[in-house]
């Protein structure tokens, strides 16, 4: 048995989970932009699965494979419309065993 997990690395946490990834069909997209809004930028910290990151040229991108489908990014950027958000296709995405 392991000691109490102290890692803050989100990737390690996601590693515990089960997913069925719909390859090549991401359910979340960031609209093309020059400068991200404060809300979109906040998602790089706020996404519980760490799906958002800033590129070298200062844009925000999303890689939604580890997405927990909480909807936070959708709600926070609802005014700016920078995020195009859909549920994954039926049956795909995160699969909680315990919830």
């Amino acid at each position, binding site marked *: *048995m*392991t*000691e*109490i*997990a*102290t*890692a*803050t690395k*989100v990737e390690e*946490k*996601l590693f*515990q*989970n089960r997913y*069925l990834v719909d390859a090549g069909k991401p359910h979340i997209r960031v609209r093309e932009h020059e400068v991200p809004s404060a*809300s979109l930028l*906040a998602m790089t*910290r*706020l996404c*519980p*699965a*760490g799906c958002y990151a800033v590129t070298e040229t200062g844009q925000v991108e999303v890689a939604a494979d580890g997405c*927990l*489908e*909480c*909807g*936070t990014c*959708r*709600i*926070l950027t*609802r005014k700016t419309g920078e995020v195009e958000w*859909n*549920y994954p*296709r*039926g*049956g795909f*995405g*995160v*699969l*909680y*065993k*315990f*919830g």
Partner: protein
Amino acid sequence: MAEMEDAFDAIVVGAGPSGNAAAYTLAKEGLSVLQIERGEYAGSKNVQGAILYSDALEKIIPEFREEAPLERHVIEQRMWSMDDTSHTGMHYRSGDFNEEKPNRYTILRAQFDKWFSAKVKEAGALVLCETTVTELVKDLTGRVIGVRTDRQGNPIFAPVVILAEGVNGLVGQRSGLRPEIAPESVALAVKEMHFLPRETIEARFNLKGNEGVVIEAMGTITRGMTGTGFLYTNEESISVGIGCIVSDFAQGEVTPAELLEAFKAHPSIAPLLEGSEVKEYAAHLIPEGGYKAIPQLTGDGWIVVGDAGQFVNAVHREGSNLAMTTGRIAAETVVALHRKGEAMDGYTLKEYERRLEATFVMKDLKKYKGIPGLLDANKATFFGTYPRLFSQAMQTWFRVDGVDKKTKEKAILKSFRDSRSLRGLLGDAWRVARAWR
């Protein structure tokens, strides 16, 4: 427009507690029901603490205790006010909770929902999983007449669609039935499942058999944001999590995962989790806007139930019971209209709202309608200043160091006055009393 052939008496979108309660009640009464769920199985997308309140389920499936996957019945409630190194607790433990029909249980939602869904099928509903409803179909007058899904094929028609789609509620929002939820009205919670042998849990929490403990915590653990932490004992695992209002998170500096790690590492929590094996990390939103955030609930051909209607009592951490109750009452309303052969329109379906007014759901939400605003306006005080003051006061009082008790008393009172001023203290008490009424 040509008459559409109704394939079912009702369509239910979603298979969480609200959708399952609705679909079960409808099917049990003999209506033909189609329930659509986007997850691989009911529960595969759902996250909760999770405490199950027996009363709401008993009104739907009286014998649930014999079959449902229940973890532990709750015999002890711990309410903690926390600062960085301590907690001040109010614990209530009672042998009376070891009753024949316990009042509250801990559950694992993915497993519980799966069980509930099996009951829905048994009752005669058609449950279609791995299928996402993409939009509502309306006729020329704007009346909802069915749904479209991400499966190939034609739309499916029914005289009424019950929207039990949960907090994100994309279908209803995109069809213009209700506005998007505001970041101020919703909390983001992250949660982990920590596994331990059952004997270890029982020894650590002073439990026998299937007895369970729940801890609800507030204080500096949320770094001045409106939110709470929780820790619940299951049979062979512990659910631990923390959540804060999304707009607070957006202004803060911490990530949800960091907040959870800090909570787990707190000296009051860490020993309870020591040696555990983590098997899942989950995140979910909780609608916390309360009464004032409840959207339009009915219209021509549609009804909203559960989280999609913001039916959560955040003060008492109740949601699934409001979900089941609204789902059941919506279904009972539909059954009554169906039997009378009446149309399911905005006028007749209002009966659902009238029935809800008479239940704890609306009464409680009304009672606490001022709380979300109060907390938002005073979060630094309620989630920072007071928990710190309580802890300091306790420490001053209990530390034996040669200082006489009168001087200690004065120091404690002074600490409160210095931080909040007498007017501030009285004002806080007044505001809380008013919002609590």
